[in-house]
């Protein structure tokens, strides 16, 4: 794939796999709906992650085989799931004590917009006809130790999702640590967006042009 290719950058599966590479062994992880859900397929060799779903299950396993699901064993996206050996079920106050109390290591969420100060908008377009629905998103970004966003770099209309200020209603201010897109991995630093890694065949300029705020180049390690 080259920069001239019409289908440049990572696929959804590749983005999920790239995120998984950055999750330390033994992490307790909450996955949002969409691309984050795909991460369960790409746990790196030798690592073990435990998935939390905020409706009341620690140790969420893969989707059940066709016809073997149960309507009362679901995830936060209300899809049927399974439970791994060593799982536990609990009530909502306990589940959100895990979140709010800073016990989860990581959540991986989708985004409508991320600003270069770490602001995240992912719950509402704020449109006059939109039905506002927040679920656990605000709890997650306020409580979980690290917040990763995985998203297409631009909207379907080609507008940047990485911006200098969110125009959509915030999910939380200054909460995002890293952004994984089809084009790049980008850290949110005190100085703003900083490139960590380019997807194969993608150039810095290509990413910078499609980013709605200044993009700092990959940090060169300083001599120590």
């Amino acid at each position, binding site marked *: 794939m080259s920069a001239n290719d019409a289908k440049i950058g990572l696929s959804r599966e590749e983005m999920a796999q790239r995120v998984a590479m950055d999750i330390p062994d033994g992490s307790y992880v909450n996955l949002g709906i969409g691309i984050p859900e795909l991460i369960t397929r790409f746990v790196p060799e030798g690592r073990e992650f435990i998935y939390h779903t905020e409706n009341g299950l620690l140790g969420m396993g893969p989707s059940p085989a066709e016809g073997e699901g149960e309507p009362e064993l*679901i995830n936060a996206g209300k899809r049927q799931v399974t439970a791994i050996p060593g799982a536990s079920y609990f009530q909502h106050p306990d589940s959100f004590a895990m979140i709010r109390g800073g016990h989860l290591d990581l959540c991986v969420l989708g985004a409508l917009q991320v600003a270069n100060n770490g602001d995240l908008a992912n719950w509402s377009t704020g449109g006059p006809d939109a039905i506002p*629905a927040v679920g656990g998103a605000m709890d997650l970004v306020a409580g979980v130790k690290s917040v990763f966003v995985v998203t297409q770099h631009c909207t379907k209309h080609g507008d940047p999702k990485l911006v200098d200020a969110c125009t959509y209603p915030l999910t939380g201010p200054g909460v995002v640590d890293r952004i994984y897109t089809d084009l790049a991995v980008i850290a949110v630093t005190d100085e703003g967006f900083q490139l960590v890694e380019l997807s194969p065949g993608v150039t810095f300029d290509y990413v910078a042009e499609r980013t709605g705020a200044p993009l700092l180049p990959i940090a060169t390690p300083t001599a120590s």
Partner: protein
Amino acid sequence: MINKEVPSVAEAVADIFDGATVMIGGFGEAGSPIELIHALIDQGASGLTVVNNNTGSGEVGLAALIKAGRVSKMICSYPRSMNSTVFPELYRSGKIELELVPQGTLAERIRAGGAGIPAFYTATAVGTMLADGKETREFDGKTYIMERGLKADFTLIKCRQADTYGNLIFNKTARNFAPPMAMAGTVTIVQTESVVAPGEMDPEIVVTPGIFVNRVVQVQNPQHESVLVASGVSYP
């Protein structure tokens, strides 16, 4: 002597009054006490404030209660779901009020209500429009908002097994909001797949102790919302 079992869902919900605040367990269809909700539709109480994470789907259970015009206000975190059309229509036409609460804040507000805690502080929603009008306060250099405990006149929940003292155990992720709602309801009404005598449930595994439960009614084979919706059922 103590026996909380009542013979029918109709009797279980008979005294729910117009304008009552009713907490209804369930996250999506998991834990939704459909038979109790349908009995409440039949019973006729209106002007209800309903607390539930969602707003139901299709035209059964909670969605049917809303469609029947019995709910004047929803307190929930996610009123937009697959197959959820009843609430959005009424909301857009201004016929139902919505108090949107982040899911964890909703869970904790309900627990606080049941635990005698009138208010607490949380960092959830700080810096967002859901903090508008809320008191903020710093603790140890971090900003929090104050949230109020939430109580209800009635709570309707579903469980897997109950004893006649009202001790309850649940099924997998159907547990969700039921335990805190049982605590926060002045009258807590439970539909259960089975009822056993006191002593048949291991005291170590009771999730909701009987002190939080007022009425238990057996519904041996509860219906599943997703099955009803897929079959196009509309209640009543």
